[in-house]
C-alpha cells in the first residue's frame, strides 16, 4: 500500500495577460484575456513509506504545484490524490499533523519575533508535550548548529540562519511525510551538506517519506535513489537515478592527457570529440565501447593519463529536459 498515490492529477491556472504600457493597462481594465496554464497535466505516481524521492524539473515545470496539491494547499482541477490515506485538500487535523511542506523561499516564522516564539506556537498547534518539545528543539538546534539564534528576532537573521529556524519550526511535530521545495537554496556548501546529512538521518531514523525538489543535483544525487523528472506538467521519467543514466545517457566520457602534441585530424573516427585543447582530450563513446576505445587510444597515442567516467548527472538531466514540449 503506497503512502502517497497520485492518479491523473491536473492543476490548471487561469492567468490573465496584460499588454505592456499605459494603453495596455487601460485595455486590461476593460477586457482581460485569460489563458489557461496547465501547470500539472494528468500525472500519476506512487510512493512507498520511507522512500526519499527527488523531484526534478526546470523552473515552471510543475514541481511546486504538485507538492502544493500533495500537501492540501491547492484544489486539484482533476484527478485523485491520496496521502497517508487522506485526501489532502480536506485538510483534516490528523493529516496535517503528519506532514510538513518546507519551502526554501518563504517562511512561516513570525517576522518580528524571535524564532522560539514560533516554535512555542507550533508546540501548541501540534499539541506537543513540554518535555518532547525541549528535546526536539535542542536536538534540531544542535544538529543545525543554531542554538544562539533562537532568541533573535527573525528579521535580523541571515538567510542561512533563517532557513535553519525554518527547518526546526517545520519539524517540531515530527512529520511522517515531508515535502521539501528547494531546501538548500541560498545556503553555503557547508550548510548544504549539513542539511543533506540531516535529511538522510531523519529519513533513516523515523522512516519518514520525503519528496524533495532541488536545482542542486548534489542534493538529489546524494539523497535520492529514485527520481521523478517532470517538465511541461508531465512526467518524463520515473525510476532509479542509476537507470536514468543508463537509459538517457548510455555513453561514457574518456578523458586523456597526452604526453606530446598530436595533429587533431588523427583523432577523427575515435568516438565523438567533446574537447581538444592540448594536452587534454575528451571523447564520448557508447557505454559498451568504452573499454575497446580506451585500449585503442592507449595503443595508438602517447598517453600520459587516461580515465573513463560516467557523464555528469547535470548533463543527463539537461538532455532529458531538452526534449521538445509535446503538449
Amino acid at each position: 500500500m503506497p503512502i502517497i498515490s497520485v492518479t491523473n492529477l491536473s492543476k490548471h491556472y487561469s492567468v490573465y495577460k496584460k499588454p505592456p504600457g499605459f494603453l495596455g493597462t487601460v485595455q486590461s481594465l476593460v477586457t482581460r484575456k485569460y489563458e489557461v496554464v496547465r501547470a500539472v497535466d494528468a500525472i500519476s505516481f506512487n510512493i512507498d513509506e520511507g522512500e526519499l524521492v527527488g523531484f526534478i524539473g526546470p523552473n515552471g515545470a510543475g514541481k511546486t504545484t504538485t507538492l502544493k496539491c500533495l500537501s492540501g494547499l491547492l484544489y486539484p482541477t482533476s484527478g485523485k490524490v491520496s496521502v497517508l490515506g487522506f485526501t489532502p485538500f480536506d485538510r483534516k487535523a490528523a493529516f496535517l499533523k503528519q506532514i510538513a511542506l518546507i519551502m526554501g523561499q518563504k517562511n512561516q516564522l513570525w517576522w518580528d519575533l524571535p524564532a522560539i516564539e514560533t516554535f512555542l506556537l507550533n508546540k501548541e498547534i501540534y499539541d506537543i508535550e513540554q518535555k518532547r518539545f525541549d528535546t526536539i528543539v535542542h536536538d534540531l538546534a544542535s544538529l543545525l548548529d543554531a542554538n544562539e539564534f533562537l532568541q533573535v528576532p527573525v528579521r535580523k537573521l541571515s538567510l542561512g540562519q533563517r532557513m535553519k529556524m525554518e527547518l526546526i519550526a517545520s519539524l517540531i511535530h515530527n512529520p511522517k511525510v515531508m515535502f521539501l521545495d528547494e531546501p538548500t537554496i541560498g545556503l553555503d556548501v557547508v550548510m548544504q551538506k549539513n542539511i543533506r546529512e540531516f535529511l538522510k538521518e531523519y529519513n533513516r531514523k523515523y522512516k519518514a517519506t520525503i519528496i524533495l525538489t532541488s536545482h542542486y543535483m548534489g542534493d538529489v544525487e546524494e539523497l535520492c535513489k529514485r527520481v521523478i523528472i517532470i517538465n511541461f506538467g508531465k512526467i518524463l521519467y520515473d525510476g532509479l537515478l542509476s537507470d536514468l543514466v543508463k537509459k538517457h545517457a548510455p555513453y561514457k566520457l574518456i578523458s586523456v592527457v597526452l604526453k606530446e602534441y598530436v595533429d587533431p585530424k588523427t583523432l577523427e573516427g575515435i568516438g565523438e570529440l567533446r574537447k581538444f585543447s592540448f594536452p587534454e582530450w575528451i571523447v564520448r563513446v557508447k557505454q559498451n565501447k568504452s573499454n575497446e576505445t580506451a585500449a585503442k587510444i592507449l595503443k595508438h597515442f602517447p598517453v600520459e593519463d587516461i580515465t573513463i567516467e560516467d557523464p555528469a548527472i547535470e548533463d543527463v538531466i539537461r538532455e532529458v529536459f531538452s526534449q521538445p514540449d509535446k503538449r
Partner: protein
Amino acid sequence: MKLYWQIAKNTWDQAVAYRASFVIYRLRNILWVLTLYFLWIVVLPENTTLFGYNRAQIITYVLGTSLLSSVVLATRSQDIASDINEGNLSNFLLRPMGFFRYHFARDLGDKAMNISFAVVEIAVLFFFLRPPLFLQTNLFILFLTLLAIAVGVVLFFFFGVLLGLIGFWSNETWGPRFIFYQLLTFFAGNLFPLDILPKQVFRFIELLPFPYLLYFPMKVYLGQLAPLAVYKGISIAVVWVFLMYGITRFVWLKGLRVYTAQGR
C-alpha cells in the same frame, strides 16, 4: 485554548515590535477624540440639552465610542488579504488549526493592546480636561453593556474577515475596506448619536448591522433604552452575527478552491 492564548500574545508582542508606528496610530486617535470633544463642548453649552442629550451624556458618548472603537474596531484582519496574495496563507493551511479561531485570537491580542493604550489616553484626557461624564452605576445595565459589546466584537470580526477574503479574487482590497470604514464612521455612530437623525432614517439604520458596533452598546451604557429595546437590539445583532458567519464561511470555502498559493 492555550494555543489561542499564544497567538493573542504573539500578536501583542508584534504590535510592540513597531512601537513608533503604534504610537502614531494612537496619536491619531487622540486627535480625533479631542476634535469631537471640543466640537461638542462648543455646540452644547453647560446646562443645555440637544436632541435629548445633556452635556455629560454627549461627552460620555463621544469619549465612550472612542474607547469602544478601540475594543470593537481593533483588528488584524487587514493582514488576511496580503496573506492570501503573498501566499503566506499557506503557512496557516498547512497546520492543524481553525482559520476563524486563529484570526479571532489575533484580533483579541490586538484589541488588548489597543484597550490598554486607550484607557491610559482617556485617563490623561480626563485628568487635564475634567470633562463632565455620566457614570453608570446599575450593575445589570453594565452587564447588558458588556454583552452588547461582546456581540459587537463578534459581528465586526466577520466583517473584517470577509473584507480580507476579497484577497482571493483581487489584489486590491484596501478600497472596499476604506469604503467600509467610511460607512462605519457614519452608520456606527462614531460622529454623533444616531438617534438624533430623523426617525425614518434612524428606523432604517437600526436594521443594519453597523449601529450594533458602537452606537448601540454606548446607548445601553447611558441607560437611555427601555429593557425591551435592549433585547430587541441584541437580537437583531445576533441575527446579523449568524448571517455574517454563514456568508464569511461560504466565501472562505469558495476562496480556498481558487487559492493558488502564489509567491511561494
